[in-house]
């Protein structure tokens, strides 16, 4: 097929140009992370910049050994527990909210903006507000309730938008059919609605988990006596930066990527099944 009219050639050139731009963008976004991955295998005498002085797992071993920052394993466990709880609450709340928004009700506009403002209010404001409020009430903040609270405020709008999109394409006639055949609300939900929206719930949970796991600004004044992992990372930044930090960063990033991968796999399986 001779399709090489000037028009086609021009289009191909434009597309090639954009593709190159996309590649450069990816390098910009991922490049620093790859530099960090590489440098985490720095030799024992090497520093935080290139060149590599040998290749070793010295800094990785240092990471698993006793740390100067704090008990990394304990804070990792705390971060994970927090992320799982945030994931569950985000998935639950955003599903319930989106189900409510399928109907018209008084104050729906206000509630919509209230949920969305979780995206708009910077973490440092929530941290300050809640921390000083709790202080005035004589309560000590702790990661499992005060940090949890503001994490959900942050992740809820993401999950909510996902579930809104899910119900937007949802065929309500399926539910009506079930109702007509005499199913009560619970049965309709359990047998018809839930199986169809499960992929969306997983996606909402993904936002909850990953955003909470990495959250720093909203935890900073609200974790109380025990640090979460991002707080430990931040604490180690105030000391002399060593390749250990790169090892920690690499491990943390790989873990995040793994989680995203797991969620995408679960999502795909459930999505296929719900078709």
């Amino acid at each position, binding site marked *: 097929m001779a399709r090489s009219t000037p028009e086609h050639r021009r289009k191909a050139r434009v597309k090639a140009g954009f593709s190159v731009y996309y590649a450069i963008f990816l390098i910009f976004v991922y490049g620093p*992370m790859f530099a960090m991955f590489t440098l985490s295998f720095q030799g024992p005498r090497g520093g935080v910049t290139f060149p590599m002085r040998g290749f070793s797992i010295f800094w990785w071993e240092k990471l698993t050994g006793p740390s100067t920052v704090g008990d990394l394993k304990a804070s990792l466990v705390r971060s994970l527990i927090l992320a799982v709880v945030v994931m569950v609450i985000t998935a639950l709340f955003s599903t319930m909210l989106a189900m409510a928004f399928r109907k018209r009700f008084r104050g729906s506009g206000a509630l919509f903006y209230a949920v969305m403002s979780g995206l708009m209010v910077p973490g440092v404001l929530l941290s300050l507000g809640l921390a000083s409020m709790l202080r005035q009430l004589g309560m000590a903040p702790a990661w499992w309730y005060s940090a949890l609270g503001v994490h959900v405020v942050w992740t809820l709008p993401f999950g909510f938008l996902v579930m809104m999109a899910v119900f937007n394409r949802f065929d309500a006639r399926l539910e009506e059919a079930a109702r007509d055949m005499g199913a009560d609300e619970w049965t309709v939900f359990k047998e018809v609605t839930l199986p169809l929206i499960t992929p969306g719930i997983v996606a909402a949970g993904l936002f909850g988990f990953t955003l909470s796991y990495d959250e720093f600004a909203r935890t900073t004044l609200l974790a109380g006596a025990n640090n979460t992992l991002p707080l430990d990372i931040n604490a180690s930044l105030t000391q002399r930066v060593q390749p250990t930090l790169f090892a920690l960063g690499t491990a943390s990033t790989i873990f995040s990527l793994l989680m995203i991968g797991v969620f995408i796999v679960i999502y795909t399986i459930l999505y296929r099944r719900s078709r």
Partner: protein
Amino acid sequence: MTTVESYAKITHGEVAPRGLIGGAPAVLDETKRKFRREPGFPVPILIAPATLWLIVFLFLPLISIFIFSFWKTTGHGMTPAFTLEHYRDFFITEGFFDPKKPEFLTPSIFLRTLWTTFRFTITVMAICLILAYPLAYFLSMQVEDFKWQLTLFLLAMVPFWTSYLIRAVAWLPMLGRHGLINEFLVGIGAIDEPVSFFLYSEFSYTMALVQLYVVLAVGPIFFSLAKIDRTLLEAARDMGATPFQIFREIIAPLSLPGVAIGMIFVFVMIMGEFATAVVVYGGKTSTTGTVILNYYAIANYPFAAVNAFMLMLAMMIGVVVILRLVDIRKEL
């Protein structure tokens, strides 16, 4: 159809009014409502938990910031009072009204910090927009296969789900005196010896912030571009419009809401930024975020609250300005 006509259609049952996101069969008039309960779980039960949660963890904290900003500081805490002295300290330094003092009519460091934060945010926003728009355009307009579109989009978005502290840290090996950029520039002979201005400078701060937040702009712009009806573009092409005309007359106006939403995201994120400055700027600059945390650390909670409140005010003004310029309601 005029508004009146469409209203008549609705009330006479020709067009069923739907919920915000559709799906629910509408109850058409009050008489029918009595006999037929709306299907689905009751709304109050569905919204109560989330509403309570938002009240406790979003609204009460914000209201307390406002209230505490008027309280008196006691050196190690605060007591209820109504004083405006923290607001005065926020705006002016001592000697503001004294023509003999060097501080005469000079705004305080805190107001200037907020201004710097704002100015810097605008710069980063502009760069994010310039970088994000072509990318979103490429993904939505040039990539035709839906699977590829989604894959390439996700690939660009993934960093958003990884730790942003770590991503800030990752700039250190790139930008330092022996960093990759210096090595590269020396290697190709662009500079004779490594320069130190890449790291712990406004340059590194800008680079890091752009890399951290540019994906937030890509997402909304991509979605608004993807929603554009392709037949519009085709029609314009058939009528002889040049690609540039198509972009200016159709694509650009229709993608504006996405641009606005993306810019709002980037704006609020960077206005509240505080950790990145420490990592890649070496703490040489302060943002209003760092000021807030510093005053919290020395237990001057009311003054931290004043800074926080002014930050919130500045952000609201910014968001309102953006919303004034672009009508995003269609998008929501």
